[in-house]
């Protein structure tokens, strides 16, 4: 039998008067049930019971004043078991109790001072460690075991990196490569810069008309015209299609490196081989093939190393102009800004033309501004005759 006593409801309480029993003989009580009402100096208070069982005996008559600690009732715990099992699922009382218990658990991790020290030094969360010491205290061995397991898991992760980790590593590698190449370029190559506004109304009109004849898959992007025009202009100025390695070395074939932005940052510059002899459709096909592969970092080595000059194209809605940094050992980079309508003065008249700003950054060791300038003029000329591209 469990004794139910007059509870102490405050340090100053010495006695209480039983006003009413809320349970009668044979009633089942559960933790949290109100068993009685007691009058104290603080008023009428409902008294909870903290045991489970059946009321075996009510020892105090209602209206009696008894000191704190007096046994008021006897509860038979045996009868309760079955009923509590049934009631547990639907019972609402644990809801109120649970948070308190959880809180206690968090603050009462039992670990030896040494275990705590080692855990702190290694940033190990002790709440995840199982204690095997006396009374399940977490010991040095447990912490060292947990650290070993943690390390093992980390090693496993390193052996079989998930896609995220792989991508992160690749991004980092790309960034490192860009940093190295661009630093070398700016350190070694004396750049000169030229800019020319090119009227591309004719070329875009031609392209729109041309695309009408094509299926959606075959349609050409303006950049194809720009690449082809660049390749053609280079045939006129081969000193720009070259590398600077112990002096200027001209390249016979024109492989245009085309800057592709990666989705996670960084750029990669695959080569469009022999752009001067490919037709527009072939160049477009090349782009369709090469851009997704470039973004997946699945290029062939030739595509990565063969370029003889670079074209960088801002594309729709971007900046008007781009002044590139030469990719060593090349000696020039051609930049195309966003195609936009621009005021255009011609023969004393001001008009609005679909235009593009073409720029050239040249290696002054290899060529001079005049060559660059002439190249841009040639580029312009080619773009004025799109049907000939």
């Amino acid at each position: 039998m469990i004794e139910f006593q007059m509870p102490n409801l405050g340090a100053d309480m010495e006695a209480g008067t039983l006003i009413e029993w809320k349970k009668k003989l044979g009633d089942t009580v559960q933790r949290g049930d109100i068993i009685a009402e007691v009058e104290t100096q603080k008023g009428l208070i409902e008294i909870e019971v903290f045991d489970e069982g059946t009321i075996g005996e009510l020892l105090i008559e209602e209206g009696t004043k008894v000191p704190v600690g007096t046994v008021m009732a006897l509860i038979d715990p045996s009868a309760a078991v079955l009923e509590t099992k049934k009631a547990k699922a639907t019972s609402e009382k644990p809801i109120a109790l649970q948070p308190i218990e959880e809180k206690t658990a968090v603050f009462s991790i039992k670990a030896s001072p040494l275990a705590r020290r080692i855990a702190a030094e290694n940033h190990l969360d002790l709440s995840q460690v199982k204690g095997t010491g006396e009374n399940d205290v977490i010991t040095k061995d447990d912490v060292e075991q947990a650290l070993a397991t943690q390390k093992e898991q980390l090693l496993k992760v390193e052996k079989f990196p998930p896609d995220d980790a792989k991508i992160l590593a690749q991004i980092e590698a790309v960034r490192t490569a860009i940093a190295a190449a661009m630093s070398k370029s700016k350190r070694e190559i004396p750049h000169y810069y030229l800019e020319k506004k090119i009227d591309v109304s004719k070329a875009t009109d031609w392209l729109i008309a041309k695309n009408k004849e094509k299926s959606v898959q075959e349609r050409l992007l303006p950049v194809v015209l720009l690449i082809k025009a660049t390749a053609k202009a280079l045939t006129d100025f081969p000193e720009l299609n070259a590398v600077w390695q112990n002096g200027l070395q001209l390249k016979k074939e024109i492989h245009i490196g085309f800057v592709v932005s990666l989705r996670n940052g960084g750029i990669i510059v695959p080569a469009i081989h022999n752009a001067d002899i490919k037709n527009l459709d072939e160049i477009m096909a090349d782009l369709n093939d090469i851009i997704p592969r470039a973004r997946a970092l699945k290029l062939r080595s030739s595509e990565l190393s063969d370029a003889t000059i670079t074209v960088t194209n801002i594309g729709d809605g971007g900046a008007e102009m781009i002044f590139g940094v030469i990719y060593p050992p090349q000696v020039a980079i051609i930049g195309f800004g966003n195609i936009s309508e621009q005021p255009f003065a011609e023969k004393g008249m001001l008009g609005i033309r679909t235009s593009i700003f073409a720029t050239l950054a040249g290696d002054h060791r290899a060529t001079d501004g005049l060559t660059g300038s002439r190249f841009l003029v040639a580029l312009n000329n080619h773009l004025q005759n799109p049907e000939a591209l």
Partner: protein
Amino acid sequence: MDNSTGKITLTYREALKQGLRKALQNDENVFLMGEDVGRYGGAFAVSKGLLQEFGADRIMDVPLSEAGFVGAGIGAAMAGMKPIIEVMTVNFSLLAMDQIVNNAATLLHMSGGQIYVPMIIRMGCGIGRQLAAQHSHSWEPFYAHIPGLIVLSAGTHEDARGMLRAALQSPDPVLLFEYTLMLNLEKEIAADLGFIDITKAKVLREGSAISIITYGTGVYKSLEAAAELALVGIEAEVIDLRVLRPLDERTFLESVAKTHRVLIVEDAWRSVSISSEISARIMEKAFYDLDAPVQRLCGVEVPIPYPAHLEEASIPQKNDIVNAVKKMIRHD
């Protein structure tokens, strides 16, 4: 008993006697005084035959007045002699407590550093053989409490023979605890003692699993327990404190840093004991090295019983040590 390996086998009593004899031979200023130390040869026969060898001036029987002859010893020390005072058992030293605490331990301070008291008080200590409640005390903690004293505990035959000689070099009063229970115990020790240090505790057995820190009769028991524990794969380190005041912290703190577990074993009553002090210092200075709470095996807090089985049960025995260590390490 000499043998060819340079070792000798002797009883604890014999070891004490050799130490005493050597001290008397080495320095004419050294003399022994105490109850029945001369004609009777000492209550525990430690000084048997010394009267014949050194004469009545150097082996002095004294009246049964501890306060009197300890006080006389202090006076002799102040006057330049090197007295060795034998107080038969530690229980009787209570009668000389005023002399020891208020004079021997304090005179250097009270005289502004002018007067040293280079005396030695030897006392039989701990459980004897059914000497009952009044003659079986372990009162090392009493004396280890007092600044101005050096308190030594001879837990091994080496120390029983050598500590006295080292103590005679001390300018300060030294209390030397000898253990009645071990008088007839035989051990083999080096024939040549060499230098005996009385400033340091001693690691008598190295181990990595636990530090058993002890002194007095706990030393051999702990060593035996460690040997038994080694059979089940538990390597216990055993440290004999030796110097109970001033404590050699460094030795046991280094051990704790290595083993991370501590069991302290002593015969003295648990409350306010040497083990209390050791435990407190470990908590203060090696808390973050501890992987388990410091545990203690101490004397049961009752007047020492007369019946042999109860007497034995009143202080930690080898099996208690083995069990306590197993419980701490394997939770047996």
